[in-house]
């Protein structure tokens, strides 16, 4: 929902206030943003600073117009200074962190150099490095409730690994962000990234990018692309499994953002069926595929965007998955499909389950 220029992303109607029974919230997907690419200049090394300083790179914009009232963002989240939604700390506090009982916020950005694909990978890696320093300086240092994501250009895995080593031990950094395009991240090409993340004790997060696609392409319409996002997340689950990532990197855990979760029963059943037949092709996968998810909790799934389902439908789906430990809450602030911590979960879900989803599971996952 944003661009590499300046993320501009809305729900102006959600009531604010405390969560049911005052439950604390661990928000795993909040998109901080810079006001313009110029904000990165102080953090760029040469020759990139000079190159960017003379306007030679305009970023990459998504190939579609947005019909939502605020574009990709909440219409009420545009700061008074004209910056994009997510670029104003005080407004973020007012609309999100202080409006609800939010204890931790995982910043996920929306500046993803992966969408530069295989062009000028050195610049892509330099932009990732600059963004990380900007994130630490302008956001993480500002509020201890913030946790960070190490942004990388995964098209150059060695440079990405070096960047993870450079800042991965920052006390507020909790994960490496791998934005989804058409890359299947189980490919051994990306193993240097996983080695570095494991070395630094970081999680791996998957999030859609403006260039994410479904199995038959991006679709003709923005809404179509938005409906297709879960396909990309399913693809990542399957790719990680079949390429042995769960076995090769036993300490790595993954966070799937904005990709949905109600499809899990099908994918887990399908994985197990195929594995029973064709295990011989992937002998490095040591266990029944569903067990990596259901039993080992190697990947968690953020609830946003929560489908409009009833509490009964939610609980039935969770029963089919076989675990109530895989879901974590996200608002996706400041984007247009924001989920309110007090309105998005079905009201009739049991209180202890709400507590797990809103806080406990993410708290355990990130260990902070």
């Amino acid at each position, binding site marked *: 929902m944003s661009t590499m220029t300046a993320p501009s992303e809305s729900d102006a109607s959600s009531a604010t206030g405390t969560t049911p029974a005052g439950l604390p919230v661990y928000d795993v997907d909040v998109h901080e943003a810079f006001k313009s690419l110029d904000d990165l200049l102080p953090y760029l090394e040469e020759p990139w600073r000079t190159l960017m300083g003379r306007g030679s790179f305009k970023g990459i914009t998504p190939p579609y117009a947005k019909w939502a009232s605020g574009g990709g963002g909440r219409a009420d989240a545009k700061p008074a200074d004209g910056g994009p939604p997510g670029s104003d700390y005080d407004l973020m506090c007012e609309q999100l962190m202080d409006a609800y009982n939010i204890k931790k916020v995982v910043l996920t950005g929306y500046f993803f150099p992966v969408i530069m694909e295989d062009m000028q990978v050195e610049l892509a890696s330099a932009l990732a490095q600059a963004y990380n320093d900007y994130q630490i300086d302008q956001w993480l240092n500002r509020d201890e409730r913030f946790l960070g994501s190490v942004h990388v250009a995964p098209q150059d895995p060695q440079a990405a690994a070096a960047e993870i080593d450079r800042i991965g031990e920052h006390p507020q950094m909790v994960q490496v962000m791998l934005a989804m395009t058409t890359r299947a991240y189980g490919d051994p090409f990306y193993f240097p990234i996983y080695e570095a993340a494991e070395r630094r004790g970081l999680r791996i997060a998957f999030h859609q990018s403006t260039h994410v696609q479904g199995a038959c392409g991006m679709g003709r319409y923005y809404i179509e692309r938005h409906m297709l996002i879960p396909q990309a997340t399913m693809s990542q689950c399957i790719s990680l499994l079949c390429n042995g990532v769960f076995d090769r990197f036993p300490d790595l855990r993954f966070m799937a953002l904005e990709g949905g979760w109600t499809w899990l029963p099908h994918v887990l059943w399908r994985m197990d069926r195929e*594995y029973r037949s064709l295990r011989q092709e992937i*002998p490095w996968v040591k266990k029944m595929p569903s067990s990596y998810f259901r039993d080992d909790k190697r990947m968690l799934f953020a609830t946003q965007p929560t489908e409009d389902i009833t509490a009964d439908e939610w609980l039935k789906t969770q029963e089919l998955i076989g675990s109530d430990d895989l879901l974590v809450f996200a608002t996706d602030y400041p984007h247009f499909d924001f989920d309110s911590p007090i309105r998005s979960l079905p009201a009739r879900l049991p209180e202890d389950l709400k507590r797990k989803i809103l806080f406990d599971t993410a708290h355990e996952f990130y260990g902070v």
Partner: protein
Amino acid sequence: MKHHVAREEDFGPGEVRTVRGASQPVVVICTDKGEFRAVRALCPHQGAELAAGQVTNLTVSDDPGKYFIDPDATVLRCPWHSFDFDVDSGRCASDGKLRVRTYPVSVEDGDVLVEI
């Protein structure tokens, strides 16, 4: 009760023979080392006849992209869905909850015999 399956010299590595006249459907397998094993002849998954299965060795690996053949693990691969059953334990290689029953096999005076 022991059942005659074949003469040893007529039963080579990789072959699968159905036991005739037994109370249970059983197949006997000759491994690539020339050893004989016997398992129930029906796949516990959907009932395929394992007599049409393939005798092969288990693929193993701890390293994505690299394959090793375990010379000590012979499997009978179901002709329908390719479930691999270890001929020693009867256990399905991909799902430990599935297994086929195994039976003792002996060679006496050149005759391959299975006890059912």
